[in-house]
């Protein structure tokens, strides 16, 4: 029963709490924003920005004062629970979305199509990690390592043997899968948190190797000059790559326009993303997907039924790595260049955030989260210096407010035919 009158003890209590919080806030703000370090020649001095202290403390004070006093008075504002979406039931809608996705770029601006292509790469990566984290429940913080492996495999195959994107694509997936298998073998028996740290370590090791094995990987400069994917062997370029060859436009008698390349890349990304979605959708319904779920639920029960936990974990880990490899190869082809800077831990964190914020195991959630996390920073360009800060904050807030994600998975269940 909510209090309808505010007693003086309530006010005093709230006041005390607010003052404590304000003092703590002041201590937190002082060394970070208020007392600003500045270089004065060879020395470092302090330039106090008292306004940050004043505003920060005021804000904290007001919020902490009002919170305990006002909250009991208002009925809890329940945020509308986001709907549990069942893709299976909305076939027509899905088809409409797909058609729109295919048609849209022909009317869009170059920049938006570019962003959309990047989003689709993250959709692919998110779906891949979703198999590892969402389906099988394995905490992988080093996913970027497999992403890098795919990208560099393509770069090296082109650099040394002149392979085109489509020729190299199966190998990039295979190479990443192999890395996944080899890395997974020693570590997948580890407990959750430890697995997370070790995989993080592996991601960092791969990055270190990329930076330092200069002869192999080109070091910090990476490898450049990578070609875009071709259309059945016809390059999408202004001029043919080889003397006497034909470009796509020459073959069809079209006028070359760079926008065509952009649209083409988008459509390729869309194709790859759709294939990833289809495959992971099938996998979860197959016996292998059931075993991932069962393992996530209760490993001991699985063992008692003859299921080999290592095999099950390895299958998820390897498949996830394979998709990351495909994503990496496409990324490399689109960029034209690979270097270690693109493959830091932040990427792993970002892809993990996509999976977790979307709703672990939920493919639709992953897609939505990938769109949100890729498009929003682009829209809010003016805030770009706050991007990472907000990203970290969003992760914390989501976990506290809605840990099941934006669109939590509604399990597809095998139903008894009635």
């Amino acid at each position: 029963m909510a209090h309808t009158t505010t007693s003086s003890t309530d006010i005093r209590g709230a006041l005390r709490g607010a003052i404590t919080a304000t003092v703590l806030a002041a201590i937190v703000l002082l060394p970070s924003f208020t007392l600003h370090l500045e270089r004065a020649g060879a020395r470092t001095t302090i330039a106090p920005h008292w306004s940050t202290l004043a505003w920060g403390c005021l804000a904290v004070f007001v919020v902490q004062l009002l919170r305990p006093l006002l909250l009991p008075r208002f009925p809890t504002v329940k945020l509308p629970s986001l709907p549990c979406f069942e893709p299976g039931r909305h076939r027509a809608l899905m088809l409409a979305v797909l058609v729109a996705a295919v048609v849209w770029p022909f009317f869009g601006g170059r920049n938006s199509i570019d962003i959309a292509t990047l989003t689709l790469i993250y959709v692919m990566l998110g779906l891949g990690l979703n198999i590892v984290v969402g389906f099988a429940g394995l905490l992988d913080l080093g996913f970027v390592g497999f992403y890098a492996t795919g990208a560099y495999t393509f770069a090296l195959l082109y650099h040394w043997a002149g392979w085109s994107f489509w020729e190299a694509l199966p190998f990039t997936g295979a190479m990443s899968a192999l890395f996944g298998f080899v890395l997974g073998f020693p570590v997948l028996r580890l407990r959750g948190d430890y697995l997370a740290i070790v995989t993080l370590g592996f991601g960092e090791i791969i990055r270190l190797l990329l930076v330092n094995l200069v002869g192999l990987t080109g070091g910090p400069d990476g490898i450049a000059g990578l070609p875009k994917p071709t259309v059945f062997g016809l390059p999408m370029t202004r001029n043919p790559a080889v003397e006497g060859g034909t470009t796509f436009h020459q073959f069809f008698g079209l006028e070359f326009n760079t926008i065509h390349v952009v649209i083409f890349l988008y459509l390729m990304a869309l194709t790859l993303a759709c294939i990833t979605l289809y495959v992971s959708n099938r996998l979860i319904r197959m016996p292998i997907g059931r075993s991932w779920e069962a393992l996530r639920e209760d490993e001991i029960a699985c063992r008692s039924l003859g299921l080999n936990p290592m095999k099950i974990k390895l299958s998820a880990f390897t498949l996830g790595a394979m998709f990351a490899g495909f994503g990496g190869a496409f990324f490399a082809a689109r960029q034209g260049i690979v270097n270690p800077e693109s493959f830091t831990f932040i990427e792993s964190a970002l892809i993990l955030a996509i999976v977790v914020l979307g709703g672990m195991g939920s493919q639709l959630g992953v897609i939505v989260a990938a769109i949100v996390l890729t498009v929003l920073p682009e829209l809010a360009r003016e805030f770009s210096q706050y991007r990472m800060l907000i990203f970290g904050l969003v992760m914390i807030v989501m976990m506290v407010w809605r840990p099941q994600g934006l669109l939590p998975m509604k399990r597809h269940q095998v139903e008894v035919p009635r």
Partner: protein
Amino acid sequence: MSTPILTVKDLSMRFGGLLAVDGIAFDVAPQEVFAIIGPNGAGKTTVFNCISGFYRPTTGAIALAGKDIAGHSSHHVANEGVVRTFQNVRLFKTMTVLENLLVAQHRHHRPPPLSGLFNTRGYRESERLKIVNALKWLDIMGLREYANREAGNLAYGHQRRLEIARCMITEPRLLMLDEPAAGLNPQEKNDLQQLINQLRKDYGVTVLLIEHDMGLVMGVSERILVMEYGRPIALGTPEAVRNDERVIKAYLGEA
């Protein structure tokens, strides 16, 4: 006795300074119902864990129809035909009753590789066979109406039956039940007793059980091993065990 289906010799299990099991030995004949009883802490579940491969015994030999399985991993032992239930029911709680039974059939009706990706006829057929098999077992257990329900939402007694069904669907040779009657009311215990006999008769499975309920134990077992503080103190028919002095002393005060 013809070749025993399970032979345990000189089994012991040490955890650091604690000797939990010491000098356990027994044989189980095919299709026999064999019970292990004893006060709490006697080491019964430890013996189960050793046999089912969850613990690696410190010493001893365990043979399944002559084949050595001591120290083998739990999934390996399960694939040899030894399945078990757990004291705390371990179902896949967010999966449906039907799906629990599908998971257990991972070795049966194997579809051609990759066929699932393309939903071929061969794949659909294998899924259909698994569902048919699962439904058969649900009928035997009287759980058919719950097929699409989440396993975690079943009544406790039904959960236990489902766990047994999940074991049986793997077509085991040896079924190990860890306190199957715990938490059941008298009617359910009666049903359990009948079920054990039915499974043994119709499916030729050997049953090894740990149990505290003496009524059930005496009613369904052919031979009983009594343990105390990790050591065997009696082995024989229910009659013999019931009248054994050491057993009476160990159970002083227990029903």
